[in-house]
């Protein structure tokens, strides 16, 4: 009970701090409670606040020094919004601009990056375990294990991973890693979250963020569509989104609640349950062979006589 009480209390503190952040931009994150195993870090993205300044993109480029360097001018250029952009081997996060069906005068901006699924399809797909989900909830990539089959890119329901097709010898799969080594492991929010001047993103434990999202929705009726994107999609994602217009209109795929690995892993695990099915095939074939051979010998004997 006591533990529970403490938990609810902390949750309330988190929510109050979050609400405070709603009112005036003061801190970069909600009161960060270290998440336990079942409830890991997440980020709530409130797209209604985004103005498309692309500072998150710049911060991402700054912290990921192995990405191609880009000038500040590039990040001030607003013509990039004329076309929809995807994440690729040069950018782990991109902001896109959409016409709002609600208020055509005010465009909607949406930031994309890896959603860090709770049941990641890419991790299930990877042939050598080069993609893993760490204790804090970040889905991370180990290039030294990778064989470059790109099956993770087939698997990802959000089309996140990019590949270095131009690199002939050591190409890597490139995607957002939640700043897991530089920041997340120290309990710090990712670089993009910290760089945002509009408090679009809130970093914290995922369940607190879900509470916060619901509170915001009830505090501002009519401002958001009812759905919190990422709450249940493909089993839930660490990154959660609020939007003023339907998520279809800002290019979020329409996905069910069933985790993607649930489409293949049951088949795999059934085929290899205690290695029994393969052994059964083997034994059955051997049995048929033995029976047929015996049967034939008997027949020949009859003929010989």
């Amino acid at each position: 009970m006591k533990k529970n009480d403490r938990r609810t209390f902390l949750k309330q503190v988190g929510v109050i701090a979050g609400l405070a952040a709603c009112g005036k931009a003061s801190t970069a994150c909600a009161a960060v409670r270290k998440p336990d195993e079942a409830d890991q870090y997440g980020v709530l993205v409130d797209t209604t606040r985004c103005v498309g300044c692309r500072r998150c993109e710049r911060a991402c480029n700054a912290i990921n020094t192995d990405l191609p360097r880009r000038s500040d001018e590039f990040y001030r250029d607003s013509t990039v919004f004329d076309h929809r952009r995807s994440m690729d081997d040069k950018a782990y996060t991109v902001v896109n601009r959409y016409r709002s069906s609600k208020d055509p005068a005010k465009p909607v901006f949406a930031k994309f990056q890896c959603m860090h699924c709770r049941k990641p399809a890419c991790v299930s797909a990877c042939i050598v375990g080069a993609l893993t989900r760490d204790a804090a909830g970040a889905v991370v990539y180990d290039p030294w294990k990778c064989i470059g089959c790109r099956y993770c890119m087939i698997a990802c329901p959000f089309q996140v991973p990019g590949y270095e097709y131009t690199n002939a010898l050591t190409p890597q799969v490139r995607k957002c890693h939640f700043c897991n080594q530089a920041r997340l492991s120290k309990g710090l929010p990712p670089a993009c979250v910290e760089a945002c001047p509009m408090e679009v993103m809130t970093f914290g434990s995922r369940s607190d963020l879900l509470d916060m999202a619901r509170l915001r929705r009830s505090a501002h009726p009519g401002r958001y569509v009812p759905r919190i994107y990422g709450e249940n999609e493909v089993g839930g994602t660490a990154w959660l989104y609020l939007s003023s217009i339907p998520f279809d209109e800002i290019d979020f795929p329409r996905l069910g609640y069933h985790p993607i690995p649930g489409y293949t892993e049951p088949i795999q695990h059934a085929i290899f349950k205690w290695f029994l099915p393969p052994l059964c095939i083997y034994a059955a074939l051997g049995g048929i062979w033995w029976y047929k051979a015996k049967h034939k010998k008997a027949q020949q004997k009859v003929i010989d006589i």
Partner: protein
Amino acid sequence: MSFHRHAAPVDKKFFTTGTLILTALMLSGLGVGLYRMIFGLAAATNLNNQYPMGLWIGVDVATGVALAAGGFTSSALAYVFQREHFHALVRPALLTAVLGYTFVAIGLLFDLGRWYNVWHPMLPSMWQGNSVLFEVGICVMCYLTVLYIEFIPIVCERFIGKVNLPGKLRRFNYGIDMLLRFLDHVLGKIMFVFILAGIMLSCLHQSSLGTLMLIAPYKMHPLYASQLSPVFFLASAMAVGLAMVIFESMLASRSFDRKPEMYMLAPLARIMPYLLGIYIAVKLGDMVYRGTHVFLMDGTAPSLMFWVEFGALTVIPFFMFMSSEIRNSPRGLLLAATMYIAGVLLNRCTVFFIAYKPLYADKVYVPALSEFALTIGLVCTIAFVYRAVVTFFPVLPRHET
């Protein structure tokens, strides 16, 4: 195994116009292969972040594995089910499988970004039992090993008593001969272990190839997103394996001026309607059960491909194999087998990149000319090596003149 004492090397000239054309196509494939290795995938292919897998996976790997299925289906027929009249087909089918799988592995190296890590799935520290691809990879590696073991008796038969190394290597002649005799003796006794293992491994990875694309349920066209996909892949692989045995036997007879081996091929073709019938029935039943028949007329490329690969190139060959007249005519049988092989080729391409619709594709993936060149080069290399092996090793049935 004493069944094969009637197999013999082919007594024909190796270099003909045909082999020279093959050589030219092989060289162009080799050129593309080198180009890809030096300049990377972006230079040699039209792959991108939306379409990460293309012609090389669809044809060189997925179709290659399916067409090489004759190795396990023919040995299942000849040994497990004791159909002795098919024994003469086992060796050519085995050679097809050995070459097919070897070139699946070689073709895969060109597609893998970090091809030098291809051995990683063998390391227990990197085993990933949840991954369908891991299972396919491990099974293919094991099966390739089994295939080479199954091929050893052919090498033994060719060289026992004939080991004749030149010059200073002469002193090894006796040792090598003893080794071959030993291998022949031991393998002759335990070969059933490997034959059974080969069939089991084939069933596992042929079906799992069909599970691969189920990881992308939101990107696959509904006609090709069935949970029964592994069953379709296994059934169609078994059928196309036999079709390949027929096709190759016909081509070899034509190429070596022999009479087509209709006395074996016609009975073999009698099995085809059963395999194809099961495949077609399950596929249609699944379509009705899932209600995906509404997508048959949606005018998209995958539904068009369904009409071509399934309607035209699977159902029509099924009826052709049903007719005893066609089964017993060399021309009709070759046509039916070729049609079904083309059907499976298109089916695998459809599953791996035509029915795959990424979220944000601005343009459809069309394989680059260089991708076709490498694929054609690999196919020609298989044909070239096949011809070389049958002129040197006792694979094809002895030809009575």
